[in-house]
């Protein structure tokens, strides 16, 4: 048991500062949709009759390209809720953060409604701190590791819950001393939130693996698909509309979410238009599957099976963000986040109080052990 206490102490201390940062930055991120809506960052479609026909995608892309003729079209997102299409353009083939232009086009009139200028607002900054502390992939993976250390601290915390609570009823909070009160509160708040903290912690760690996992999948999938095209230059998409139509006919049960244009970079294929589809039920709408359509011949398409680890990644996203149950779930998510902050701070306080206390009272060790509520 002494070992478990040590494990709990040190895993907690190591992950503490990062977990506090993640909890604090995560709090506003839970409500990022609502906050962005309040800041009126989003472009809305003008009111028109519901049955107004939609123009072909190629025309919408051309309209966006007219806005920034020198730039590369990287991908096109079809908004599900509104007849809007967002075309992402970049001056470079590999997009540089802060250089990606998102042009919103009305799908019914091909009118350019606005361009989300490349900028970083407060929420972007908070997200970057939360994701990688502005250090890119190494920082992201490091935070993933901290997530694992945090999980170890939770598991060891559950183990050491027993000696503290074996003579107390569940939920007891003693108030003989400030320290005892916070010890009992730490135990209580920690133990009731275990499921949530483990779920959010571990799915956070899985999310940090997004880049390496999708690279792994590409390395396993793409060479075979690109073999027939060996030696061919980067293809120019003949018609995005034809590719999307072909996918819609072949997969009537799925919705088209976005299109990745032919590219030499790691997020696409040099010979295919990648049509990203999603299911139509609330759960399957989170499960994206790519369909690769030959850029020059839309009758040729492949829908490679998505590996289990990418499915795991897709399932872990909502479980980390808490965005799958409407506003009430977001509020519960925020409350659990605040409780976790209290557990973290009280844990740090208990450690400081114990060290300070034991240095002050080195002569009265038994009294201190009794105050801590641990019987050996």
């Amino acid at each position, binding site marked *: 048991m002494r070992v478990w206490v040590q494990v709990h102490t040190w895993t907690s201390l190591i992950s503490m500062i990062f977990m506090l940062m993640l909890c604090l930055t995560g709090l506003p991120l839970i409500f990022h949709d609502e906050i962005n809506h309040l800041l009126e960052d989003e472009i809305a479609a003008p009111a028109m009759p519901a049955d107004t026909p939609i123009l072909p995608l190629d025309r919408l892309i051309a309209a966006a390209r007219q806005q920034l003729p020198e730039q590369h079209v990287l991908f096109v997102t079809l908004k599900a809720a509104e007849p809007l299409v967002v075309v992402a353009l970049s001056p470079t083939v590999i997009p540089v953060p802060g250089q990606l232009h998102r042009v919103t086009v009305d799908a019914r009139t091909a009118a350019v409604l606005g361009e989300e200028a490349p900028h970083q607002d407060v929420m972007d900054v908070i997200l970057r701190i939360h994701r990688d502390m502005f250090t890119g992939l190494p920082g992201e993976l490091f935070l993933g590791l901290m997530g694992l250390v945090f999980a170890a601290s939770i598991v060891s915390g*559950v183990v050491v*819950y*027993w000696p503290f*609570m*074996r*003579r*107390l*009823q*569940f*939920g*007891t*909070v*003693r*108030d*003989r001393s400030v320290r005892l*009160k916070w010890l*009992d*509160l730490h135990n*209580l*708040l920690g*133990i*009731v*939130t*275990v*499921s*949530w903290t483990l*779920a959010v912690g571990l799915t956070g760690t899985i999310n940090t693996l997004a880049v390496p996992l999708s690279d792994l999948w590409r390395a396993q999938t793409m060479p075979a698909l690109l073999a027939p095209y060996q030696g061919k230059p980067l293809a120019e998409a003949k018609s995005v509309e034809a590719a999307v139509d072909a996918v819609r006919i072949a997969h009537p049960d799925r919705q088209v979410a976005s299109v990745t244009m032919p590219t030499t970079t790691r997020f696409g294929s040099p010979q295919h238009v990648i049509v990203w589809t999603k299911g139509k*039920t*609330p*759960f399957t709408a989170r499960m994206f599957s790519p369909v690769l359509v030959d850029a020059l011949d839309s009758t040729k398409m492949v829908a490679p099976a998505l590996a289990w680890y990418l499915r795991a990644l897709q*399932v872990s996203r*909502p*479980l980390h963000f808490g965005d*799958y*149950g*409407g506003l*009430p*779930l977001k509020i*519960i998510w925020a*409350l*659990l986040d605040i*409780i976790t902050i209290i557990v973290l701070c009280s844990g740090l306080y208990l450690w400081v109080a114990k060290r300070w206390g034991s240095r002050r009272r080195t002569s009265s060790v038994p009294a201190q052990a009794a105050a801590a509520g641990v019987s050996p």
Partner: protein
Amino acid sequence: MSSSATSAGRLPQLSTWQVFRAPLLIGLVAAAGLAFGLFGEGLWDGLCWLGLSVPVLLSLIYGTRWNRRGKAATDGRQADPSDAAL
């Protein structure tokens, strides 16, 4: 004068099961809440909110009770039998 349970000033030692049955139940309810929300909208969302609000409510109920109980808890045995409800 001397009831064996209280003379020691603390509860008799609880078994692992007795210590962990309430946390286990709460953990399962919360985990079920986490999962239910993924299954669909409407009823599933309701069950999700219900399950996940259990840890929040228990934190509030037990976490603020020491305040109100005040002097009732003086010796090592504060927990009255009704605390064992869960």
